[in-house]
C-alpha cells in the first residue's frame, strides 16, 4: 500500500462528506459505466477527474501518474485483442501484414471491441481512483461493517492495514540505515544489502509480532477487535445535487446516443 495515497485520502477536501455518499455515488457510476457507450464513458471519466482533482484537491501530477500507470498496462493487453493472426485476413480488416506465411491483421470489430474495453476501463478506473483517493481505508471499513459482511473480515482488514504500515516503516528504516552507511554504493553491494534487508525484515517482523501480541493483551484483548470512530460528516446538498443531476444527464446522453448513432 502506498503511503502517499493514504496521506491524500486522509487530507483531501472531500473528507468531510459521508463515506456512504461517496461510495453510493461511485457505485451508481460504475453501474452506468457498465451499460453505456464509449462517449458516455469518457464523460464519466472526465467528470470523475473533476471531482478528484478539482473538488477533492488531489495533485494532478499524482493523479495523472496513477491513471497513466493503469492505462499503459491496459494498452499492452489491448494490443493482443486488436491484432489477430490468420492464414488469410478477413474482408473487414482495416490493415494487414504478411508474416510467417500467414497474415497479421486488425479487424473493425476487434478495434471497436478494444475501444469499448478501453473507454469502459477508463471510466471505472477513474471512479475507483475517486474512492481510493477520497475515502480513507479506516472509514471504508466502517461502512463495510454496516453491510452484512462478517465482522471478523472487516476487523482483519483493519489490522492488516495497520500492520502493513508498520512493516513498511521497518523496511524503510532498515533501508535508510543501510543507505546512510553506503550499502547501495555499487550494484553488488546493493544486491547483498537487499538480501540482508529481507532477512532482517522477516526476523524483526517475527519479534514485532510477539511484542504487539503482548501489547494487545495488555490492553485487555477480548476475542474481538472493536473500535469506535467519530463520524463528523456533513451531507452536502451541493455535491448531492450535482451527483444526481450528473447521473441523470449521463443516462439521457446514453439514450440519445442509442437513438441517433
Amino acid at each position: 500500500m502506498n503511503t502517499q495515497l493514504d496521506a491524500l485520502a486522509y487530507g483531501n477536501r472531500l473528507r468531510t462528506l459521508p463515506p456512504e455518499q461517496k461510495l453510493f455515488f461511485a457505485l451508481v457510476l460504475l453501474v452506468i459505466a457498465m451499460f453505456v457507450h464509449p462517449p458516455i464513458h469518457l464523460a464519466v471519466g472526465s467528470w470523475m477527474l473533476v471531482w478528484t482533482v478539482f473538488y477533492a484537491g488531489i495533485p494532478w501530477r499524482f493523479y495523472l501518474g496513477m491513471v497513466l500507470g493503469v492505462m499503459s498496462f491496459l494498452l499492452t493487453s489491448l494490443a493482443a485483442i486488436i491484432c489477430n493472426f490468420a492464414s488469410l485476413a478477413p474482408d473487414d480488416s482495416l490493415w494487414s501484414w504478411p508474416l510467417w506465411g500467414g497474415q497479421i491483421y486488425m479487424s473493425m470489430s476487434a478495434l471497436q471491441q478494444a475501444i469499448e474495453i478501453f473507454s469502459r476501463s477508463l471510466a471505472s478506473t477513474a471512479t475507483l481512483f475517486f474512492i481510493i483517493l477520497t475515502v480513507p481505508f479506516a472509514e471504508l471499513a466502517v461502512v463495510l461493517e454496516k453491510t452484512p459482511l462478517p465482522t471478523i473480515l472487516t476487523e482483519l482488514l483493519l489490522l492488516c492495514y495497520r500492520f502493513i504500515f508498520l512493516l513498511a516503516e521497518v523496511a524503510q528504516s532498515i533501508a535508510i540505515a543501510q543507505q546512510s552507511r553506503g550499502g547501495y554504493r555499487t550494484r553488488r553491494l546493493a544486491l547483498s544489502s537487499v538480501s540482508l534487508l529481507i532477512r532482517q525484515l522477516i526476523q524483526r517482523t517475527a519479534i514485532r509480532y510477539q511484542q504487539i501480541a503482548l501489547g494487545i493483551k495488555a490492553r485487555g484483548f477480548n476475542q474481538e477487535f472493536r473500535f469506535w470512530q467519530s463520524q463528523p460528516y456533513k451531507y452536502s446538498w451541493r455535491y448531492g445535487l450535482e451527483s444526481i443531476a450528473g447521473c441523470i444527464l449521463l443516462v439521457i446522453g446514453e439514450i440519445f446516443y442509442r437513438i441517433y448513432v
Partner: protein
Amino acid sequence: MSDYLLEMQGVEYTYPMAEQAAVKNLSFRLPSGRKTALIGQNGCGKSTLFLLADGLCRPQQGVILLDGVTLKFDRQTLNRWRQRVGLVFQDPEQQLVAPTVESDISYGLCNQNLPEQEVADRVRRTLADFQLTELARRPLHHLSLGQKKRVSIAGVMALRPDLVLLDEPTAYLDPVQTRNLLTELDNIARSGTTLLIATHDLDFVYQWAEWVLVMNNGSLLLEGETLAVFEQLQLLPSFEIGMPLIWQIWQTLPAKVRDDHQVPRSIAELAVITNLLA
C-alpha cells in the same frame, strides 16, 4: 483497600531461551495512591517487572499481589487484573493497534464492553486531556514518535486503572510536551491513581516522585521515600546511576548551610537557599 497496592514476593523470571534470569528474588511493596518511580541501569529488569506486574509474563517463582489478592493465570482473573493495572510500553508501536488516533484510544474501552455513548464521551475527554483533539482522526502511521507516545499513554489512561505502569513516558517528548504530560500525570495522581514510572531521568524522579524503587541486576536494591533513597544511594558509590542535579548542587554548599536548611526538592527551593547565601 490495603496500604500497599502492588506487591511482589521472591519473584523470578527467565525469558525463554535466555541464559540468565532477567528478574530474580524480587520483592517489593508499592504504597497505594502515591507517585512512585522505578530506577536502575539499562537491562536491570525494569521493563520485565512491568510485564510481570501486568500478568504478561508468568514468573517461574514467587507471587504477585494486587490489593492483597494473588495473581492467578486464568483468563478471568487476568482480564480483571488488566482492567485495574494499565501498562504503557517503552515503545509506543508495541501497543497501538487501531488505524486512527481516536479509534486506538477507544480500543481498550470497547474491550470493556462499555456502552457506545460512554466510549465516545471518554474518548473525547481523553483526547482533550492529552491535547490530542486535533490529531483525533489522523492515522497512526502519520504521527511522530512523540505523538504516538502520547496516544499510547492516553489509550491507557482512558480506562482509568487503579495502577498505571509507565515505561519511559517522557522518552521522545519535547520539553513542552514533557511538561504537559507531567501536569496531566499529576492530575491523574491527584484523582487517587497510583503511578509507577520507570525512567533514567533522575532529575525528574527527584522532583516528582514520592516513593522510589531502585533495581540492580534483576532484584530490588532499595525502596523508600525519595529523599531517603537518594541519601542511601550516596552511600553506595559502587552502584553508579548518577545523582540528581539539585542534589549535587546541594552537596557543594557549606555544611553549615546544609545543617540549617531542609534538603531542597525543586529548583525554586534551591534558589531560595542560594539567594540567602548571596
